[in-house]
């Protein structure tokens, strides 16, 4: 298939890339701009040297671009799944969070079985489902590119999706409530089979500490924490500090 100076795109590479994208998994198409060879690198694949460093950074930032490595020029086209923000609770915070999240590029969906809360009037421009989280998420399961914020304050509604988010490896899991409320929640989640390592992944009290004093400010704190978690996916605490 070689054409001397440059090669055509390998159909297998395109099929592999599209399969990863359909499955909502991150992948980078790496093209050697010198000879035209393509290869698909999946998130977590080990790549050595300067190219590997550039690939790790590209997975984190989601930015495509040309890089020079090993004396060659490569083009990295980064395909990150569209992150999905699932909010359990059609409450005041969710009303503020919905437009903010949309602007920031995180399409949001609200799930709350309480029909008085989950109404078209209260949520005119956002996907909202007046159903139990168990029923909605069965059809549309959480994954590593989903964030889950449980903010109903009601264990009957919040607990199941929290456990489900931990099991799915969601990049962000947050739960509203004081430290005392959270301590009780931890006991219940442990009883549901969550591991201590999973419990550590829950952001509670929810949101960055910006001294938020009302629902809109709590929404800002949650969104900031979601973005921070998204940009440091799968990286240790040391690498997290390097993120711009």
């Amino acid at each position, binding site marked *: 298939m070689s054409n001397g100076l440059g090669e055509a795109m390998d159909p297998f590479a395109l099929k592999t890339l599209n399969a990863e*994208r359909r499955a909502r998994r991150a992948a980078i198409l790496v093209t050697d701009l010198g000879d035209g060879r393509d290869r698909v690198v999946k998130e977590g694949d080990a790549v050595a040297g300067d190219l590997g460093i550039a690939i790790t950074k590209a997975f984190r930032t989601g930015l495509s671009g040309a890089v020079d490595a090993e004396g060659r020029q490569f083009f990295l086209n980064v395909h990150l799944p569209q992150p999905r923000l699932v909010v359990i609770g059609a409450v005041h915070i969710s009303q503020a969070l919905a437009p903010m999240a949309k602007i920031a*590029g995180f399409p949001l969906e609200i799930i709350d079985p309480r029909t008085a809360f989950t109404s078209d009037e209260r949520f005119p421009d956002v996907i909202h489902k007046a159903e139990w989280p168990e029923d909605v998420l069965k059809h549309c399961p959480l994954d590593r590119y989903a964030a889950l914020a449980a903010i109903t304050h009601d264990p009957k509604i919040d607990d199941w999706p929290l456990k489900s988010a931990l099991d799915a490896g969601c990049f962000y899991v947050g739960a509203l409530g004081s430290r005392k409320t959270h301590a009780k929640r931890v006991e219940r989640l442990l009883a549901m089979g969550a591991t201590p390592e999973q419990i550590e992944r829950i952001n509670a009290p929810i949101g960055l500490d910006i001294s938020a004093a009302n629902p809109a400010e709590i929404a800002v704190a949650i969104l900031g924490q979601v973005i921070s978690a998204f940009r440091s996916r799968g990286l240790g605490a040391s690498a997290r500090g390097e993120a711009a």
Partner: protein
Amino acid sequence: MPSTFLDDARDPLIIAEGWMKDGKDVAIATVVETWGSAPRPVGSHLVIDAGGTFHGSVSGGCVEGAVISEALDVIGSGKPKMLEFGVADETAWQVGLSCGGRIRVYVERLG
């Protein structure tokens, strides 16, 4: 509202794969570099079949025509090309970006 799932009807790379399955000859153009104000970000795709049908974009419509005609050459020869577009009077191409930016577009044949 952006979907969290791929839009098969509008996604250029999904369309290109479908064309390939239908036995069509296909070229894929990709924005690999931009300078200044550029209408489409790095990584954007325009896909073209041998009949000149296309989906996606590499600019706001300013240079698509030129990219499509180059893509037809690439489909014929199989050799990738790197195209560069800037303000019209500074390039060999008789087209440019009215916004004053510059872009580099890589065009390759699929298979």
